[in-house]
């Protein structure tokens, strides 16, 4: 375990997990916003919006994330010259965020939609009966209750997102998995300890996340 006492190794690990947290934070926010919008579209009375929502979910939920992230890099950036930052690292970071968000939003959408199904139809009827429009009914009555019903599943999606963020390493960001690969290449004699350390850090980050979301889910649950 000597290698983890070397400052440059510590730096690589720290940088790696800092990228993971940044990827998770940025993609988590974007995916939540996008996922809620998609869920709204999928339950809307406008066929075109429903179509867009359904197509999005079917596309991104059924495509490997590696493929989505590769497309962002080799398709959008290399081929179509879509550059999201002049800084090389940041460009790859935002391309990664784009892919992770598009992919995760599909899962968020479906979680929210299942939450909408837990809201009794009478809630929407009462909202319409006092003169709220469809958008207001969704925003003020349905989504707040649907969201509270799916806090724990959203926590699972966030945990999956954190781990999925390692895939951005494949397009060149020095995140944790990339750092690990580098360490293993340089220290073939301590492969297992290196694995254990990286796995341990992920577990240490994500186990409390799971408990936090379960606790929040219970706390925020709507009593009927």
């Amino acid at each position, binding site marked *: 375990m000597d290698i983890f006492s070397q400052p440059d190794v510590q730096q690589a690990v720290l940088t790696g997990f800092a990228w993971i947290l940044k990827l998770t934070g940025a993609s988590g926010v974007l995916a939540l916003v996008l996922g809620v919008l998609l869920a709204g579209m999928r339950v809307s009375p406008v066929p075109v919006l429903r179509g867009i929502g359904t197509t999005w979910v079917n596309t991104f939920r059924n495509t490997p994330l590696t493929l989505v992230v590769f497309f962002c890099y080799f398709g959008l950036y290399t081929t179509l010259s879509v550059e999201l930052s002049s800084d090389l690292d940041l460009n790859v970071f935002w391309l990664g965020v784009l892919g992770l968000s598009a992919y995760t939003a599909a899962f968020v959408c479906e979680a929210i939609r299942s939450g909408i199904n837990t809201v*009794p139809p*009478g809630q929407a009827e009462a909202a319409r009966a006092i*003169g709220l*429009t469809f958008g207001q009914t969704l925003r003020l009555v349905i989504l707040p209750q649907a969201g509270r019903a799916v806090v724990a599943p959203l926590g699972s999606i966030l945990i999956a997102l954190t781990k999925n963020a390692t895939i951005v390493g494949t397009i060149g960001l020095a995140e944790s998995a990339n750092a690990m690969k580098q360490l293993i290449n340089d220290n073939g004699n301590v492969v297992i300890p290196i694995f254990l350390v990286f796995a341990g850090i992920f577990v240490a980050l994500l186990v409390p996340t799971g408990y936090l979301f379960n606790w929040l889910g219970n706390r925020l649950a709507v009593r009927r």
Partner: protein
Amino acid sequence: MATDTAPLIVLDGVNKWFGELHVLRDVHLSIARGEVIVVIGPSGSGKSTLCRAINRLETINGGEIRFDGVPLPAEGKALARLRSEVGMVFQSFNLFAHRTILDNVTLGPLRVRRESPDKARTHALELLERVGIANQADKYPAQLSGGQQQRAAIARALAMNPKAMLFDEPTSALDPEMVGEVLDVMTALARDGMTMVVVTHEMGFARHAAHRVVFMADGQLVEEAAPSEFFANPRSDRAKDFLSKILTH
């Protein structure tokens, strides 16, 4: 432009099917301003559907419904505006479960009428006082008894200053000891001149608060009469049969 003597709600040859089932058969009904109509009849007779069609929670397949002289809008903002003028009280209360009682009552005035928060709050507290649950304003619906929830739901509907109120079996989901408190609120409302359409099984309320009783069976409007006349001398066999079943106990 409708005058004050023109009827407020007119159902003109209304028909509705649920698939094969013909739930409203050529219903004609005209309701004056300030009139209290009680709709009774066996279950499955179309009473609730009739009530819900008036604010278009149920669409109809034929005929026309006019509110205040204007045919019901089909959808969109115009329909939302119409609904804001017609209060509705449901069998299962349907209070917004994630909002306090006060927030339930102020939601419509704030978001539909764009009232100021102060004005909406003051009005809401007055209404909660009127239905006798001002001390429950900060609680959530699940913390209230059924009777209290239904009175809050009535306050929520009244907060929009509706031109008419629809009651769809408002006491059917209540424990017996809570029926009275809700009927008291409704009776007071009727006395104050509110136009009301009430679907109910409470014959006592029909007798003392209704101006007219409408009897429905199999989607048809079979008979309508003043309550005293209807209960003493029902003309149709269907009504006689129905009354004999519910009034013998």
